[in-house]
């Protein structure tokens, strides 16, 4: 994974590098994120701001108040059109409803790039720069199965998901994990329809520590012998660990997660989380700004990665207990590249 990621990034950097001295100076780029309260989006904003300053562009950043604040995003798009922006980078709260307002922006000659979250349909944006969330899930699933070895056949798995509305990021990670573990996912567009007896249950966490702890307690109530726990993100994993520790089960349960935030990677170092898939929001945003600069200079629209319908900004498995057949990076390297 690391090699694909690096080469892809380098390929894009090579095309954007110094070739466009003129044409983008002073151009306006917009960044519209779901909220400012998530370190992931904060990092994204930092990456965009730094790159815009480097290229001499003006960045206008907008965010909704809470995840799901669709109206604020529509307002921001209209402001960007009025401001004569060259490009819009957006992590959509409502991936379907946002397509129509964005079409008006594209009609006005603005390059629209979806960051992190693909639109529905995905061609509602000119390009999508995102983490391959299915791959992120598959890596931790394959790692868990390889780490358990023969015992994987008798695993008791707890699934700690995001929320009931099943947003695509949660579904992709969940289904990727099960696929990597070697479990039939049935319908890959939703979680919870699997009938493999190794899955004890699905619970929702809202992606925070309190939710993770409560959800883990509820799973332990259903089966106190759970020994593999998938978590949607690292805060949920930290909460799950607390619940396990309170019941004296810490140490003999494999917890896997996705994100690669700094506290999360530190938790891998401390043995709270066995392995986590790390994504790169800062890179996502800085590549987006470069793409807008390129577009402003000569009208080039970025191409998707080979075999995918979006540009893959990369994902790496972070663990200090590498498993055979699953590529990973060390915790040390993960800490160097963590966000938040």
């Amino acid at each position: 994974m690391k090699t694909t990621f690096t080469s892809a990034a380098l390929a894009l950097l090579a095309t954007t590098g110094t070739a466009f001295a003129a044409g983008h100076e002073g151009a306006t780029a917009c960044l519209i994120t779901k909220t400012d309260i998530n370190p992931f989006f904060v990092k994204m904003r930092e990456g965009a701001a730094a790159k815009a300053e480097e290229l001499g562009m003006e960045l206008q950043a907008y965010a909704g108040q809470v995840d799901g604040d669709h109206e604020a995003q529509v307002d921001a798009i209209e402001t960007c059109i009025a401001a004569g922006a060259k490009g819009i980078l957006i992590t959509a709260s409502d991936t379907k409803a946002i397509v129509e307002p964005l079409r008006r922006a594209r009609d006005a000659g603005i390059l629209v790039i979806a960051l992190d979250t693909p639109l529905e349909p995905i061609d509602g944006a000119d390009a999508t720069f995102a983490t391959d969330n299915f791959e992120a899930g598959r890596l931790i699933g394959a790692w868990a199965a390889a780490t358990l070895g023969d015992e994987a056949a008798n695993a008791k798995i707890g699934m700690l998901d995001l929320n009931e509305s099943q947003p695509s990021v949660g579904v992709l990670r969940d289904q990727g994990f099960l696929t990597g573990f070697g479990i039939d996912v049935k319908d890959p567009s939703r979680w919870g329809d699997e009938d493999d007896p190794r899955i004890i249950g699905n619970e929702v966490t809202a992606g925070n520590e309190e939710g993770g702890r409560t959800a883990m307690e509820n799973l332990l109530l259903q089966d106190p012998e759970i020994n593999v726990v998938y978590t949607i993100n690292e805060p949920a994993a930290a909460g799950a660990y607390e619940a396990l520790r309170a019941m004296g089960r810490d140490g003999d349960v494999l917890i896997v997660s996705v994100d690669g935030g700094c506290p999360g990677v530190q938790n891998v170092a401390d043995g709270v989380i066995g392995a986590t898939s790390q994504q790169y929001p800062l890179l996502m945003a800085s590549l987006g700004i470069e793409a807008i600069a390129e577009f402003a200079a000569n009208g080039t629209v970025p191409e998707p990665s080979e075999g995918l319908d979006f540009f893959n900004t990369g994902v790496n498995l972070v663990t200090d207990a590498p498993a055979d057949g699953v590529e990973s990076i060390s915790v040390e390297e993960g800490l160097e590249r963590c966000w938040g």
Partner: protein
Amino acid sequence: MADSYEASASGADTRVAEFEQTRRSPLGHLQHLLHNYPTLVPIFILLLSVAVFAVVTDGRLLSGLAIKITLEQTAIVGILACAQTLIILTAGIDLSVGAVMVLSYVAMGHMAVTYGWPPSISIMAGLFLAMAIGAVNGLLVTRIKLPPFIVTLGMWQIVLATVFLYTGSQSIRSQDIDAAAPLLKLFGERVEIGDWSLRIMGAPTIYAVVLMLGLFVLFWYVLNHTAWGRQVYAVGDDIEAAELAGVQTKRVLLSVYIVAGFIVGIAAWAAIGRVGSISPSSFAEANLDSIAAVVIGGTSLFGGRGTIMGTLFGALTVGVFATGLKLAGANPQWVLFASGCLIILAVALDQWIRRISV
């Protein structure tokens, strides 16, 4: 001669003024009973929900582990609901309790872990912060005469924004708290003294549960057996009558908001232990959950009527629904659905009891 006109009075009707006694229907008797003992409804609903879920889950709801988990999951919202009860008894409402709790524990955590202050000082400072915000709410309500709903709606957003601006939504890890300030996690520890430990049917429980129960007993006493407690009811029931009776209504109202702030600060300390880490994104709906517990507990949103123990039973009812439905394998959305039904039922019941005829 002298008393002849007195004698003529002896034939007069000797009855004093009295209410006309009409025959009450069984329903009317029930209405009066509930009016006099408002805690009966939440107790009944709690017992009924325990009974129903015990059957539905084949008795698994009554295992030590299930009871322990229900109590621990209820503890933080329960403590917030204790504060919320005081405010609602004065015909107010506090939408900011959850956010203030988060701000308070974020402050405690950063002072103790990030800046290395002594844990006890950090906890005091967090408590003081929660009380100070309560005081601001109270001053805006009593001095500027703004409606509590608006004041606390504004405060909720201000505090929420402050939390996220300050923390960037970044948690402080459990392991870092253990290393720097384990005192912050006191209420997450098991109740153990020497060889003895507090167990619920074999399942060891944590201090947060004891704290919740203790606070409810304390405020039951304060509300029912102290002058301040009776004044809280008086102010909530009829603020003008209370004023005419010599109660310093503004001072009582302000003190209610400060005391509620103190309880919220205690909840913050307990929440660190319960969750394990300092998590700015947790408890997003704790304000509404606390209001739900109070309302299901039978306290009137119009103030002056309700009991603090009712709130405890209301919070536990929601907890029993949550655990019971999950044990029964139902979709978690049904917890929300059921809680919504209970809220409407409880308020409808309250209206009916208010319309008492005699």
